[in-house]
Structure formats: structure tokens, C-alpha cells
């Protein structure tokens, strides 16, 4: 039995010891413990160090709002994580934990020297210094500041765990399973509505688990909770524990993070560690309760100083007495119950120091009965103790006068500054908050979503009130679903209602400018920091927060926001709401990146599309490149070949005899209907009316701004049917653009669009032997009437096919389209039939080289979204007689017809060297920087012609044919001559062969 564990007490399993380590030392806790409760049971309060001053700290809370007790945890390789709240992490066998932000030891930390110089490290000090000498900033100051960053250490290995996600649609989502949430769920579940009740803790019941003496409807609290949960389960309510509602998004979408395995000794194989639920609820009930506020006084951060409610929770849930001689300082009635319960469990309560002059008689009586002295009308001015609190100094307050203090010995100090409703999720909805002057707190005001707020979350106190409110909220949610239910009433015995007052810093007889009275524990923000910020002109709470970093620690201000606001308001002489509201931002508590990733990792990070021929490419050693969503075969290296060698071989083989290429990724759109030709005329720059069925044409598509968007060869299969091809990356975009025009601008046209990209597998054959090889395999084509730029429906290798005679290489070329299921069959058949011609499979790189030799552009490479058809030398593709087409009007804008536009030309280097794609071109290489650049290289390749070729856009390029330009590179200036973009077979002799 650990020193501070009370035998048999709490909800932990006293028969199930669990061992774990903290900073290398082994401890024993019990099943059901958190790391914090287990350490406290062992008398360990010192659990961490603060961020700026490295002050020793212990757990101040018992929940997810904990700012101090942050630890590193690990399970195995790749499973380390920093900044885990010891108050949340459940014990599991073999858990390894470590403290953070200390060197060399938690109990002796060199960084604590900052604490000695704390007067220098005032709010915003870094804005005021480290500026001279200027050169020191980069070399000395900034590295030192950055070196001091952070709390825990980042993981350094890849995480082997899985993460999951799930959508959930539910009628009523109740967030928080304390008294109010359970009552709300009971109400909502009564008419068969689909109800989901979630709670961030391992067990449902909320504060009832820390208040076992309360009786509801004649049952002790714990029994009541158990019975109600059973009722809810029986009614089909979804109950989810260890599930944090992290964010409240548009239209009642709530993100829930469910922790599935961190508490398990041995998680099942393949089980996800966490699951993100994206819940769409018709109605939401927020029953998140309230968070206890610390009091602000010098030394309020020593290990052993904690919230009174936390001590009560450690006692009742975990059977842990946080100290033998606790003292209590409070401005709220609730702390008395913690003191009473501890006293009843054998602690000797040194004193209850109450800041209020008048204390409720029943509380005084309770104290008297237990022999506890109550110092009403007192303040706390300081505490003592290095690694653990040893005493607290209490001083009487008369009006504004603080009298002489006396030190009261204690081994822990429980504080309560009252309670703040937990309104984080409500704030995510942009619902407005109203200031309640009576309770000095913000309460929910105007709602923007279909939600109800119940219980302590809207400032109610005492179980009877909270239960009634929860039941009513559940009923209203039900009404929101147009369902009826009846109201419920609860009788509560031993209720613990209470009230309190709110303070800024507690009054002191010392120098308040020297007090280390903390507001944001983790970030070491003190009351004087807030006052300094105000003195320096920070008037809004956002400025104060950012200047001091108050509320920006990992508890996101759960502990500190209201205290900070009260003090800022006091300093400004304003009411808190005039100073402004702090904005709560998701997530409610820090949430692992893995949970957000869900399935978006590894193979399923992003969709990868593969063609029907991809398996062959993979089996035959292709190197792939990602192109839009697809992976495409880039080149097919043979043993010992690098990319350059492989591509040159593929190019030469194609030019010499026959190459084969998987072109399946090309976008394909079937444009069909009586108005198909009219539609084509309107969309594309080219004229289509006179294109005969059975023939193809290069099509150019502009945006309405006149710039090139896409291109492709388009075949007319019948008067009413066009087979449109698009670029790989443009397929979806082009279809959407066409649909947009068709549906919204020209709904009168009788034409329809169908994506057939995936219906067809497309294999391109190119080379002087292409026709010879293909002919015997084709049936249904009249070869006497099938010149370059023809198309036909036929069979190829016995497969139904659409055959296009076209070329993207300058050689005789075909594209064979077969239904996708036959793609691999066709490929294999062609490879077989091509053997006599040394058929050579090639990838996208060879395709690029061959097309560049021929001067064919790649949209997106040779054009960049500012290129018009004229700029690209594609004037000929414009139907001059057409009155209108998409983008036509823009082509006559002043700067589009102006001289000096960049135009697409060819480039040949004088020294025969290869230019870099993206290299910049100048006319005068000797000019100083910044140089006047006239264009850049868009495409550049080693060609089959023995010298490299390049394409470039150059200002006024068409008028500069034959002129020399310069390309200054880091290793010297290249000279190049401007040429036509057609380097290979300018007369198309090979195409017509």
C-alpha cells in the first residue's frame, strides 16, 4: 500500500497493482489510476518544471485542464510522446514516463536560474532587447531564444500506430456525462431518438464520482450513475468514454476524438490508437460542467498547491489523500467540502482560510465539528517550501488593510477561486457570451446552432438544479426534433450547493511588484505581467494575451483566462466584458495529429490512380512519376541504364522502328447529341462544322480570359458524336467547365457530356513500322481512306476498339482505345505482334522528348496560364470565321494584342549543351543585376538528332528568328539561337509515309 492511499477507498481496483516508471524510478499504482493519482499516492507532488522560469511544479488539477504535470510517455519504438497530462494518462502495465523541461534533474534544474532573474523576464521583454549589436541577433540571441523553446521533446521516430475515423449521424449528441449530461440523455432518449452521450474521462459520472455522499432519488451517487447508465444503454443510447469533443463546427458538426488504446496494457493487434468521429447531430446538448479557478497569490504554484476540487477527486475517485496536513484557501463554499472529506478520511486540516468575511453557518459548523480552524476575512500572502509547499502565510484583511500574517504549516494547500463554466465548444460556434455580474462570469447568450447548454456549464450550482436543468435541456432538444417527451424530476439529498466571490490578486502586505503570483502556470505569467501589459497600452484582452502569453499554454487558458481578464479589467478600471472576450479555439484539449490524419497516411494518404496497364509497367521495371492523381510510367530502364540512357534508347527505338506507350490517362469525353457540333464550336477555338465523321482535329480550349487551358485531339465519330481527349491533369477540370457552360449558359442545346476516360484503355503506337505492324490486327478499317488524323470504330486484335491515326511524336502514329478490361490484353498482344519490329515500350519522358522535337506543346509546361494561342504560335487553331467561342473576347484586350508579348520559339545552344528547364533568357549577359529577362526555357531535352533542343518563351520571339540570346547560368553564360519550335521533320514527310 502506497503511503497516501486509503485502503479500500476510491474507484480504483485495490487488488490490481500496476507498476510504471517515472524518471527511471519504478512506482506502483492501481488499476484505474492516472499517472498523477499514482504519483500522489506515493507522495510525489513534484512532476514538472514551468516553461520560462523552470519553477518546480506539481499537479494542480485532476483533469484535462492540467497545465503543470506534463510528462513524456512511451510504450515502444516510435511510441514516445511529449506533453501528456499526467492527470489524464491512465496507468497501464509497463508505462514509462519522464518529466520535462529540466536539466539535469527534475529536482535540480540549471534552467531555474531564470527564476532568479525573473524581474528581467517580464512580459514582452524580448520585444525590447536583443537588438544591439544587430549582428548578434542571428548569431547569438536568436539561437539562444530558440534553444530555450518547448516543453517536452518531439518524437523522432515513425509512429507504428494506426488511426481511424468515422462519420456519425445522430439525433442528439450530449457532450459531458456528468449529472446534467446524464439527465439530458435520459430525457432525449425517451422517445426513440438516436442519442449519443460522450465524456472525455475513462468513466462517466462527472463530479458525482467525486461526491459519493450525494444521494439522488434515494440512491447514493455512484449507484445512481450506474443505474442511469444501464438505463441509457438499454434505451439504445450510444455511450462513449475517453472521447473528447474537440471542436464544434458548422451546422452541428462536432469533432470527437476517442482514445482507444493508450490505457490498455496490451491493445489488440491492428486496433487504432485513436478514432476521430465527425458527428452530425440534429441537436447538441453541451453539458461540460465548470472548471475551478485558482486563486492568485505569491507562491500559488508550489508543488502541493492544488485546486480543492482536484484534491476531492483524488480522494474519492482514486482513494488518494493528497497530504496529511492540508491547508485550504478559498473564496467559494465548494472548498469546504474538500476539506471536510479529507478530514473525514484522516487528514489533519491545518486551516481553512476564507477570503470572505461571512461564511455560511452550516459550513462553519461542519468545520467546528471536525476541529478545523476557519480564518474568515483572511488573505494568503505567500507560501514557503522549495520542491513542496511547507507553509502558507495567512493575513487578516480589514477593509483595504492587510494585517500581520502568520505562517501555517501544511504539506499541501488546496485553493478555490470559484468556478468558470466551460464554454469552449459554445464559443467555437461563434455564439455570443454575456457577462453575469452576479457570478462574475461569462454565460452563454445568443446561440447560432441548434444546441442547448445545461448545468454548471451555464452557471448553475448544486446537483438538484443541475439535474433539473439537464433534463429540461434534453427535453428541449427532443422538441427540436419535433418529438415529445415528459419532464423528469430528481430529488437530491446531501446536495452541496455553494456560492463564492471572485478576486483579482489576493490582497497582500508585501510588495505586489515582487510577488510571484501566477495566473498562467505553464507560461509563468504573473499578475504583475498583466498589469505591466496594461500599463504599456495593451487594452484589449487579445493584446494582453498575446503580449504576456497568458492563456496560450497547453491548457489554452482553462486555468488562466478569467483570472487574467479580471486583473486586466481591474488595471484598466473597466468591467471585464468591456475589455473583451477571449476567443476559445479548437481543439478543446490538445489532440494528436494522428487522429486528424485518420486513414490519410501511407498508401491511403491520397488517392493514386493506376491505369489498366500499370501492372505490366510495374512488372517490367518502370520508374513511375506522379502526374496529377495518376502514377505514370516515366521510363523503362534496362539493367545498368540511368534515366538519360533509357530515354535516349526509347526515343531512338521509336524513331527507328516502333514504340508503344500507355496513354490511358488522357482525359476522354463523349460529346453527343444533335447540337454536339454547335457546342464544340462554342467551346473550342477551332471550327468543327466541316470536320467529317471519321476525321480528327487538334482542339484548343481557352479560359474566358483568353489563356490556354487545355488541348487534345478530337475525333468526330458521327455527325452527332465527338470523342474529345484532354490532357491528363485537365480531364476533370475540362469536363466541369463544359458542364458549367452547358447547364448554366446554354441549357437549350441538345447535347450531353459523358466522361469516358476510364471506359477506354489507350495504347499509343508510334514509329515508321507502326502501320505495318498494326494493319494485320485490325478489322473494319478502310486503309485506303484512313490518312493521318482519322478515326474509326473497329476491332484490334479481336477487341472492340476506337482507333485514331494521329501522332504526338512526328512518326506515323496510332492510338488504340479498347474497353478498359481489355487494356492489358491489348498491350500484351501488341507487344507480341511488335516483336519483329523490336517494339520498345516507352514512358512519359520519351513522349515529352519526341513531341518537343516535333514542336508540339505541353499545356502547363510550355504554357503557364498567361499564354494565348498567338503567344504559343497556335493562331492556326483559331476559327477565324467564328463570331464567338470561349475566350475570344479576351484576345482583343489591349495588353493581349500589344507588342513584346512572350512567344514560344525554339532554342539551339551554340556549344551544343543542354539548357536547364526554367533557365532565364537575357539579351545582354553583361548587364548588372537585376537583369532584364526576356523569357525562359520551357522544355529542354537531349534529342535523337545528336544535339539538345529547347523551347522557350521570349518577348517578341517570332520577330527574332535566327537571333542570338543569352542564358546566364551559375557556371557560365550560354549562347543560343532562336529557331522554329519544329526541330524534326518540318515537312511532315514521316507522318504521311
Amino acid at each position, binding site marked *: 500500500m502506497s503511503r497516501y492511499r486509503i485502503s479500500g477507498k476510491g474507484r480504483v481496483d485495490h487488488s490490481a497493482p500496476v507498476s510504471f516508471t517515472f524518471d527511471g524510478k519504478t512506482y506502483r499504482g492501481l488499476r484505474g489510476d492516472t499517472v498523477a493519482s499514482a504519483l500522489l499516492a506515493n507522495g510525489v507532488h513534484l512532476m514538472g518544471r514551468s516553461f520560462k522560469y523552470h519553477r518546480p511544479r506539481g499537479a494542480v488539477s485532476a483533469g484535462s485542464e492540467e497545465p503543470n504535470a506534463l510528462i513524456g510517455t512511451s510504450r515502444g519504438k516510435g511510441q514516445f510522446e511529449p506533453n501528456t497530462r499526467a492527470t489524464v494518462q491512465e496507468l497501464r502495465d509497463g508505462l514509462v514516463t519522464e518529466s520535462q523541461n529540466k536539466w539535469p534533474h527534475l529536482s535540480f534544474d540549471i534552467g531555474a536560474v531564470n527564476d532568479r532573474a525573473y524581474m528581467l523576464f517580464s512580459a514582452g521583454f524580448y520585444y525590447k532587447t536583443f537588438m544591439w549589436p544587430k549582428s548578434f541577433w542571428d548569431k547569438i540571441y536568436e539561437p539562444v531564444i530558440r534553444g530555450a523553446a518547448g516543453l517536452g521533446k518531439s518524437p523522432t521516430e515513425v509512429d507504428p500506430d*494506426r488511426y*481511424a*475515423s*468515422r*462519420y*456519425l*449521424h445522430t439525433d442528439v449528441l450530449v457532450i459531458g456525462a456528468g449529472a446534467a449530461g446524464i439527465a439530458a440523455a435520459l430525457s432525449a432518449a425517451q422517445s426513440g431518438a438516436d442519442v449519443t452521450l460522450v465524456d472525455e474521462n475513462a468513466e462517466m459520472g462527472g463530479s458525482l464520482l467525486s461526491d459519493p455522499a450525494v444521494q439522488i432519488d434515494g440512491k447514493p451517487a455512484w449507484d445512481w450513475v450506474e443505474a442511469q447508465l444501464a438505463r441509457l444503454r438499454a434505451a439504445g443510447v450510444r455511450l462513449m468514454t475517453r472521447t473528447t469533443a474537440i471542436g464544434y463546427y458548422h451546422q452541428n458538426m462536432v469533432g470527437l476524438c476517442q482514445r*482507444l*488504446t493508450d490505457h490498455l496494457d496490451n*491493445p*489488440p*493487434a*491492428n*486496433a*487504432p490508437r485513436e478514432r476521430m468521429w*465527425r458527428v*452530425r447531430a440534429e441537436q447538441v446538448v453541451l453539458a461540460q460542467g465548470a472548471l475551478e479557478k485558482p486563486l492568485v497569490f505569491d507562491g500559488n504554484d508550489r508543488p502541493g498547491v492544488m485546486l480543492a476540487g482536484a484534491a476531492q477527486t483524488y480522494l474519492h475517485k482514486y482513494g488518494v489523500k493528497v497530504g496529511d496536513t492540508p491547508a485550504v484557501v478559498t473564496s467559494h463554499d465548494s472548498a469546504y467540502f474538500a476539506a471536510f472529506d479529507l478530514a473525514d478520511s484522516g487528514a489533519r486540516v491545518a486551516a481553512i482560510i476564507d477570503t470572505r468575511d461571512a461564511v455560511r453557518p452550516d459550513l462553519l459548523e461542519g468545520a467546528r465539528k471536525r476541529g478545523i480552524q476557519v480564518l474568515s476575512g483572511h488573505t494568503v500572502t505567500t507560501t514557503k517550501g522549495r520542491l513542496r509547499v511547507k507553509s502558507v502565510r495567512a493575513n487578516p484583511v480589514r477593509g483595504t488593510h492587510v494585517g500581520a500574517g502568520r505562517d501555517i504549516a501544511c504539506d499541501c494547500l488546496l485553493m478555490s477561486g470559484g468556478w468558470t463554466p466551460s464554454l469552449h465548444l459554445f464559443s467555437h460556434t461563434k455564439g455570443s457570451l454575456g457577462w453575469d455580474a452576479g457570478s462574475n462570469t461569462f454565460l452563454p447568450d445568443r446561440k447560432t446552432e441548434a444546441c442547448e447548454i445545461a448545468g454548471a456549464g451555464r452557471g448553475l450550482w448544486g446537483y438538484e438544479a443541475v439535474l433539473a436543468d439537464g433534463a429540461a435541456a434534453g427535453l428541449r432538444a427532443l422538441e427540436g426534433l419535433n418529438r415529445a417527451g415528459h419532464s423528469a424530476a430528481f430529488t437530491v439529498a446531501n446536495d452541496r450547493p455553494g456560492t463564492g466571490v471572485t478576486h483579482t490578486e489576493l490582497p497582500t502586505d508585501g510588495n505586489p511588484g515582487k510577488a510571484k503570483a501566477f495566473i498562467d502556470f505553464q507560461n509563468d505569467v504573473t499578475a504583475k505581467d498583466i498589469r505591466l501589459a496594461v500599463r504599456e497600452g495593451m487594452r484589449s484582452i487579445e493584446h494582453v494575451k498575446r503580449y504576456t502569453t497568458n492563456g496560450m499554454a497547453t491548457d489554452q487558458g482553462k486555468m488562466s483566462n478569467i483570472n487574467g481578464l479580471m486583473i486586466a479589467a481591474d488595471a484598466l478600471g473597466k468591467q471585464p466584458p468591456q475589455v473583451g472576450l477571449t476567443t476559445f479555439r479548437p481543439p478543446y484539449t490538445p489532440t494528436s495529429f494522428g487522429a486528424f490524419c485518420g*486513414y490519410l497516411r501511407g*498508401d*491511403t494518404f*491520397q*488517392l*493514386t*490512380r*493506376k*491505369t*489498366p496497364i500499370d501492372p505490366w509497367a510495374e512488372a517490367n521495371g518502370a520508374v513511375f512519376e506522379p502526374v496529377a492523381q*495518376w502514377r505514370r510510367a516515366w521510363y523503362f530502364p534496362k539493367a545498368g541504364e540511368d534515366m538519360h540512357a533509357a530515354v535516349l534508347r526509347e526515343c531512338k527505338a521509336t524513331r527507328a522502328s516502333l514504340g508503344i506507350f500507355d496513354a490511358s490517362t488522357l482525359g476522354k469525353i*463523349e460529346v*453527343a*447529341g*444533335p447540337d454536339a457540333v454547335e457546342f464544340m464550336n462554342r467551346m473550342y477555338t477551332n471550327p468543327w462544322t466541316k470536320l467529317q465523321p471519321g476525321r480528327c482535329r487538334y482542339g484548343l480550349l481557352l479560359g474566358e480570359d483568353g489563356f490556354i487551358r487545355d488541348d487534345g485531339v478530337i475525333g468526330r465519330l458521327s455527325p452527332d458524336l465527338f470523342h474529345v481527349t484532354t490532357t491528363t491533369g485537365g480531364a476533370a477540370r475540362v469536363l466541369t467547365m463544359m458542364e458549367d457552360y452547358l447547364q448554366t449558359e446554354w441549357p437549350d442545346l*441538345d*447535347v*450531353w457530356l*459523358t*466522361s*469516358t*476516360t*476510364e*471506359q*477506354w484503355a489507350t495504347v499509343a503506337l508510334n514509329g515508321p513500322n507502326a502501320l505495318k505492324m498494326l494493319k494485320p490486327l485490325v478489322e473494319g478499317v478502310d486503309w485506303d481512306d484512313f490518312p493521318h488524323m482519322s478515326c474509326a470504330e473497329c476491332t484490334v486484335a479481336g477487341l472492340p476498339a476506337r482507333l485514331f491515326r494521329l501522332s504526338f511524336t512526328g512518326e506515323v502514329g496510332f492510338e488504340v482505345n479498347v*474497353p*478498359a*478490361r*481489355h487494356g492489358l490484353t491489348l498491350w500484351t498482344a501488341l507487344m507480341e505482334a511488335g516483336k519483329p519490329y523490336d517494339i520498345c515500350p516507352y514512358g512519359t519522358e520519351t513522349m515529352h522528348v519526341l513531341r518537343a522535337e516535333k514542336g508540339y506543346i505541353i499545356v502547363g509546361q510550355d504554357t503557364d496560364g498567361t499564354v494565348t494561342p498567338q503567344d504559343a504560335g497556335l493562331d492556326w487553331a483559331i476559327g477565324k470565321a467564328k463570331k464567338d467561342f470561349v475566350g475570344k473576347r479576351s484576345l482583343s484586350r489591349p495588353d493581349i494584342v500589344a507588342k513584346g508579348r512572350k512567344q514560344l520559339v525554339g532554342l539551339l545552344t551554340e556549344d551544343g549543351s543542354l539548357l536547364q528547364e526554367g533557365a532565364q533568357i537575357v539579351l545582354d549577359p553583361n548587364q548588372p543585376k537585376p537583369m532584364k529577362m526576356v523569357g525562359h526555357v520551357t522544355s529542354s531535352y537531349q534529342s535523337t538528332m545528336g544535339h539538345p533542343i529547347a523551347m522557350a518563351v521570349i518577348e517578341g520571339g517570332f520577330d527574332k528568328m535566327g537571333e542570338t540570346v543569352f542564358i546566364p547560368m551559375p557556371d557560365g553564360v550560354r549562347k543560343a539561337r532562336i529557331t522554329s519550335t519544329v526541330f524534326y521533320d518540318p515537312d511532315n514527310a514521316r507522318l504521311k509515309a
Partner: protein
Amino acid sequence: MTNQKHQFDASPVVVEDLAPALRLSLRVKPAHRETLGRALGLDLPTRVGSRAAANGAEALCLGPDEWLIVAPEGTDLASPARAAYADAPHSLVDISDREITLRLSGPAVLDLLAACCPRNIAAMPVGAAARTVFDSATVILWRDGPTDFRMDVWRSFAPHVRSLLTQVRTEIAAGL
């Protein structure tokens, strides 16, 4: 393609590849819907997501002028459609090979779908269908029974969808 089952022991979800079928995308304006429907022997439904079957063929209304027709391979619907073209201009495109169809069934099938479908699939009536999204893939989901679905997915998206389905099935099998 065979009716291959990817089944784990005692798995609460079964994922199977279905054999190819004839799949046609039909587009016709509302004014000519009935005429064309008669020609095809199908009463083309008008409510998006509803289905009608006749003579072994089934038509699903995907949009106000769009139907997906599924029929056994070899069914000739193109000829009657062609014959009605003058009276009822339309577009009828063979997309049999554009998609593959998976059958998803078993008691946990709704969990499986809820992993990646943002739409409330549980609320979809039996006998309905919808074009929707599964993760980043557009799919057509047919509900044939309370725990019995078909999913049409574009061929190139299938590896991704299969990989996700496998991950989620593994997760469901782990029981957490």
C-alpha cells in the same frame, strides 16, 4: 474478373468483386424521357436516387436528365435507343468498363461505410441508390438490403478504395 471474395475469418463485413455487367449512361431531357423509356422498355424514374427494373435491366435516376442503366452483358439497348433517336434525342454511352462493382455486406457494413462516407448511409432506404463520395473517390452506392450494398467505383480509383476497405475491415475485426 471473378467473383473473388476477400474474406477474413468471422469477418463482420464481406467485400466481393462482382462480375462485369452492361452499364450505360443515359442522358435525355425530361420532355423525351417517357418516349425513350418506352423504347428501352424501362420506366425511367424521376426522383434522384430511385430505381426501376424491368426485363433484367435496372435504371437509376442520377440527376434530372441522367440515368444509369445496368443490365446483363449482351443486352441490346443501343438498337432500340438508336431507333428512337429522332423522336427523342439523347446520349447513350457504354460505360461498362469505366467502373467496377464491389458488393459490401455483413452486419458491420454500415460501420465500414461510415468510415469514409460523409453521407448518412444508414438513412438511405433499401432499394435506393446515390452517387456520393467514399473518401476522395466518387462512387455510386446501391442499397440492396439492410446490410447489403453495391458500390460502383471508377476503375483507377479501385485500388485506393480497396485499400481503405481493407484497413477499415481490419480495424473492425480488431474490435475497438
